[in-house]
């Protein structure tokens, strides 16, 4: 679930377009930049958190492999 959560941060693309416009309006710049920050947190945090959680499973399978190896001796 947190994997698809990170994808919902795709709105970062919209935020970049909103923040990058040159229309001399401070309101747009503030809103756009805030959107970029928030969406980036969503994307980066989402992927890293997912990776960390999945890493828990991986660590375990390595431990398993080690145990099996040990048993084989």
């Amino acid at each position: 679930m947190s994997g698809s959560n990170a994808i919902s941060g795709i709105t970062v693309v919209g935020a970049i377009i909103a923040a990058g416009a040159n229309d001399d309006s401070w309101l747009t710049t503030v809103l756009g930049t805030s959107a970029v920050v928030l969406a980036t947190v969503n994307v980066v945090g989402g992927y890293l958190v997912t990776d960390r959680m999945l890493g828990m499973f991986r660590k375990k399978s390595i431990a398993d492999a080690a145990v099996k190896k040990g048993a084989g001796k």
Partner: protein
Amino acid sequence: MKPELLINLAYIVAFILFILGLKMLGRQSSARRGNAISSLGMLLAVVVTLLDHHVVNYTWIMVGLGLGTAIGVVCARVVKMTSMPEMVALLNGFGGLASLLVGWAEYGKIRHLGWSAYLDSFAGTPAFTSAAIFLAVFIGGVTFTGSIYAFCKLAELVSGRPVLFRSQQLVNALLGFVLFAAGLVFVVTGQPDLALIAFSAFLAVSLILGWTLVMPIGGGDMPVVISMLNSLSGLAACAAGFVIANNVLVVAGCPVGTSGLILTAVMCKAMNRSLSHVLFSGFGAVPAASSAGGAGADGGASAITGELKPISPEDVFSVLEAARQVVIIPGYGMAVSQAQHVVRELSKRLENNGAEVRFAIHPVAGRMPGHMNVLLAEANVPYEQLVEMDAINPLMPHMDVAIVIGANDVVNPAAANDRASPIYGMPIIKAHEARTVICLKRGKGAGFSGLENQLFLLPNTRMLYGDAKATLQAVSAEFKNLASG
């Protein structure tokens, strides 16, 4: 090649990477690579967007990307494994707020430049773009405050119990009406001032509505809520995509929206309840009008009147020492007390003592799907020892001891035999069929959902009070003494 064409081609590649990544996430062996592939797609989408001709000013984008990355990295590194559900809720809220801000910023541009200049650069008609702005702001707003409230409930900053007040449904319906009325005015009116008033109205109402919608939902149902909010944040991104006529937002938002909805439906099914029941019933607000009398009144079930029988860690040791078949049923309480490593240690000692140990995982145990699996994996519990509910239940009568660690509703027999119980019909792990049940609990109060648990009152149940980590350590220490002594 024209940059527009290049950008759109890159978006298609990014989208393929998302789908491929999501598909690989579904299998345990490829999940981590799938996540990496999906993030690669995201990186590609971000990089090519910088080439978009709408983007002329890079300073603030770089500030935003840098700041966001720093915050994201720190959060993801610092957050504890047990706090993952809150973290996911919070990130989701950020995504929703970002979509809201995109909608708002575009509306700001329209006010600044006027419609004709704006529509020169983005395809659309005033009505279409207005409708898309309305949807992005409204869905993003509900997602944001809803997620923040869910975060507060999960982090126990506010009570996990449902908050109900009189005519709550009426208030929500009224808010919804105002929201859509303002949206309609915003889309059809040609007057800039009236549009601004309508915009402010639905911006404010959507933020309030997110809050009031999550309010009556009990803490136990938060996984469903988060999955639904996740789905909404995808739809908000989708709407933002229509505002700026950007394909990748539209097509990437959709799978998030639908996969979230499917997961929501799966979880509701696991609890044998409808989504509307989860969202609107104020589930668990009436604490156990059922427990004793209700059960007897409807005939089939025997009335359960018993008392809570405490047990000491030493006595738990004596019970476990003689046990050959042990099943451990973890719940949110294990996450709270960070007991997973001690649980693993105890299970190893039990195995050394000749017992067979299984872990029974209920589909909605914990505060997010797969919560228990992640924690037990962290503590190196072998995957093969995890048994799903449907597989463990037939074996339950053969179990010498069932150890319930901070789980409550998922083992409450009322779900099976008490028609008056709010959770009646929810599939449970039948811990009560084991010869002896040991329940670890922080204190005597009702659980997170606010329901009394008949299991705790059964004659074969013993209560081990205290912090699960500390009490399990004490039990485990007894085994250690046995081994050394």
